[in-house]
């Protein structure tokens, strides 16, 4: 790897160095190598992007910089040197003194990583106070200063709130502020914006980049999103299965990826649905017709007068930020949440508002696939039971028929029946679990499938496989999809029609071409403008644009 010379930072001092680093993870009572001899060099003030799919070892490598491995893992070889300190032989006390002070960490889920029992500012002040760097009063003053630098609203007061009292984007910024509390030399950002909406993500990214530049902090930026890393990093390392695939300065890497795997990552966003001739279908009766639905949790209206149709063989994408009412719409259609006003028609017939009053046949027609395949399937059931249950429940098949049909369905979702039929969910990868969920939905032989963020938790390559599968099944079985997502790239890839939602209302709806061509309504434009582009100058330009406007 000696030829991987960092371009712009040769003259800087080396801050972090890993040589032939090896980490083992324990699985099935055996040690497996999960980091297989990685070299990494980081200079002061440099931002290094680590990119790869889940399981590539990005996070493991990131936290290894602190001399830390997760429980069930161990360092098995190599060397980590942080500013002259050997992190593998340093005592626990010595590493503890570095953590939070010279090396800080920003986690993926700020909501889970803040302690619910303490105020934000106390969790901030804890670091300098416990490390005897400053008094509590000084830490408080510094926190407020950083909060304002990170453009948090009401920087004087916001720290005195509890984590559940502020929004996700604000929490993520508060966590970045917390990481800055001792002005560390190095911050590890572990997928810090993955859980955020695009519109929030861009604001958080901007403030993070800004603060890192202001204090000349070095950073390791871990993500699976290429467009994000393009904005943040000076240099990118692509990892796969614990090995380095390729390393280059950001612009070089984006312009000219060398390895086939890197190219395939770059190519992911190219998938487009095979377009069907829509015009012939316009005349037919919609499968599902949502008419003037207003729905509420308690007394608060969450949906306001929602109307749209799902046609046979078509995909309607419902786009919006979290809290915009996308999933609530799905709950109304499936009967989990009876609407306060309006109705849902199935092939022209009104469906009973409450799923308990629907017949088995009505229930069968609308199936769901969820974001988290992990929680949507019973971990104690084998694949044959998971898929077989709807077959016997809805279609009354006997065990022989169930067996035959389960095998057919497995073949349909491109999993080998002999290999997979007796597996437990824990023996499947994320993408395979989602495929099982698709097979389970198909087992009921529905006319319509609601896909709720089905690819959000998956790596891009895997997600693309799922999208292609869904597309093929749609063509073969003439299914109608309602596709809930916040990812506009996915929307572009799979939709026929698009519904844009904001705060429980539909702000725009129409064919994909219409939605994605100007003129845009204000909100759609904001959504589109917030999607990170692969161009590394994109964020700078956007900031400049926003500044000139204000």
């Amino acid at each position: 790897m000696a030829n991987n010379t960092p371009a712009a930072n040769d003259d800087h001092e080396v801050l972090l160095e890993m040589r032939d680093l090896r980490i083992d993870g324990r699985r099935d009572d055996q040690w497996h190598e999960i980091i297989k001899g990685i070299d990494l060099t980081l200079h002061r003030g440099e931002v290094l992007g680590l990119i790869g799919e889940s399981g590539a070892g990005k996070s493991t490598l990131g936290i290894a910089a602190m001399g830390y491995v997760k429980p069930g893992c161990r360092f098995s070889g190599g060397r980590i040197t942080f500013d002259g300190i050997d992190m593998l032989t340093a005592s626990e006390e010595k590493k503890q003194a570095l953590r939070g002070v010279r090396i800080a960490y920003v986690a993926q889920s700020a909501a889970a990583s803040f302690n619910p029992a303490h105020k934000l500012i106390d969790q901030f002040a804890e670091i300098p106070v416990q490390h005897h760097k400053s008094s509590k009063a000084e830490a408080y003053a510094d926190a407020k200063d950083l909060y304002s630098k990170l453009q948090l609203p009401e920087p004087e007061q916001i720290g005195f709130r509890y984590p559940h009292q502020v929004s996700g984007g604000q929490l993520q910024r508060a966590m970045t502020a917390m990481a800055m509390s001792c002005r560390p030399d190095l911050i590890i950002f572990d997928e810090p914006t993955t859980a955020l909406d695009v519109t929030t993500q861009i604001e958080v990214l901007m403030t993070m980049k800004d603060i890192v530049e202001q204090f000349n902090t070095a950073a390791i930026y871990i993500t699976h999103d290429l467009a994000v890393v393009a904005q943040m990093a000076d240099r990118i390392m692509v990892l796969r299965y614990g090995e380095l695939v390729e390393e280059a300065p950001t612009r070089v890497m984006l312009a000219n990826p060398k390895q086939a795997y890197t190219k395939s990552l770059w190519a992911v966003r190219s998938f487009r649905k095979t377009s069907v001739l829509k015009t012939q279908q316009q005349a037919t009766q919609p499968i599902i017709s949502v008419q003037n639905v207003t729905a509420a949790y308690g007394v608060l209206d969450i949906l306001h007068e929602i109307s749209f149709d799902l046609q046979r063989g078509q995909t309607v994408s419902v786009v919006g930020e979290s809290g915009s009412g996308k999933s609530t719409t799905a709950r109304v259609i499936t009967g989990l949440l009876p609407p306060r006003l309006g109705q849902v028609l199935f092939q022209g017939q009104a469906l009973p508002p409450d799923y308990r009053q629907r017949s088995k046949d009505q229930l069968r027609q609308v199936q769901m696939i969820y974001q988290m395949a992990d929680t949507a399937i019973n971990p104690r059931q084998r694949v044959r039971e998971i898929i077989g249950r709807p077959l016997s429940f809805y279609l009354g098949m006997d065990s022989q028929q169930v067996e035959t049909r389960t095998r057919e369905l497995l073949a349909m979702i491109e999993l080998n029946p002999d290999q997979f039929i007796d597996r437990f969910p824990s023996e499947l990868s994320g993408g395979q679990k989602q495929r099982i969920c698709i097979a389970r939905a198909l087992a009921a032989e529905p006319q319509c499938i609601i896909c709720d963020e089905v690819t959000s938790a998956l790596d891009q390559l895997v997600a693309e496989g799922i999208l292609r599968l869904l597309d093929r099944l749609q063509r073969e079985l003439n299914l109608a999809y309602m596709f809930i997502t916040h990812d506009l790239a996915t929307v572009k890839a799979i939709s026929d029609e698009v519904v844009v939602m904001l705060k429980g209302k539909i702000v725009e709806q129409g064919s994909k071409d219409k939605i994605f061509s100007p003129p845009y309504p204000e909100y759609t434009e904001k959504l589109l403008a917030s999607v990170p582009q692969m161009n590394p100058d994109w964020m700078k330009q956007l900031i400049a644009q926003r500044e000139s406007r204000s």
Partner: protein
Amino acid sequence: MLSIIRLILERLGLGVLVLFAVSLIIFLGVELLPGDLCQALQGQSATESTLAACRKELGLEQSAPTRYFHWLANIAQGDFGKSLANGREISELIGVRLANTFFLALVAAVIAVPLSLILGILAALYRNSWFDRSINVLTLASISFPEFFVAYILILVFSVQLGWFPSLSDVSPDTPLLERLHKVFLPALTLTLVVMAHMMRMTRAAIINLMASPYIEMAQFKGLSRSHIIIHHALPNAWAPIVNVVALNLAYLIVGVVIVEVVFVYPGLGQLIVDSVQKRDIPVVQACSIIFAATYVLLNLTADILSIATNPRLLHPK
């Protein structure tokens, strides 16, 4: 804050309802016994006329619902009626005994609760160390032996062989506090050994359960010490399960002392209930049952309220 007050009021209402149901069950239970109080009192010597006179005196000729509401109304005013065995006011009889039982429970709780919490925290802190293992073995062993066995062992060691503490806890209302403490030490120690395992293990489990959560990992990445993490980050979130187990065990200290009181001949409520059952002194048994039930309900109520009140989401709504 308002929502918490509402919750507390709701729980209080539920508690009263439970007590009401318990009183009904106690009353019906006695009603279901064959014969009545007067037959029980007079036994073989009963004649029709003495029975009738007795029933009239005790108001037994009235219908069951009337007697129930009468009894309930009296209890609500603190009047439990008279003991059949000696004709004394039950409230008077119970008063001293109840105070003794509470005193013993208090002494046991003051030893057991802090000790279990500290041991639980230490066990979590040094998980899987020899300390953790031995403390687990010891507490489990002490909970596995029957109370009377533990009590006799303690008597054998501390009273018979070492002679440090008396084997009889015969306190009277005018025993001075220090002597009283000295006398109840062995029963309190017995109770402590019995209830400690449960509380200590729950504290340990609740903390260890939280140690896997992302905010604990974050605290580690902040370079905080392990003890700071456990006390400041894990413990505040572990209160709910711990408080519930503590309350359950406190209730046991009051309600479950029967055997220990008998072994140490301690004049508490447990002794009284045993005596009264033997003497068929049903009004006293009823009164004791109500008091035990009230203790249970009150302590569990407190646990409920505390575990709600320590939840920051409820304490600081959006």
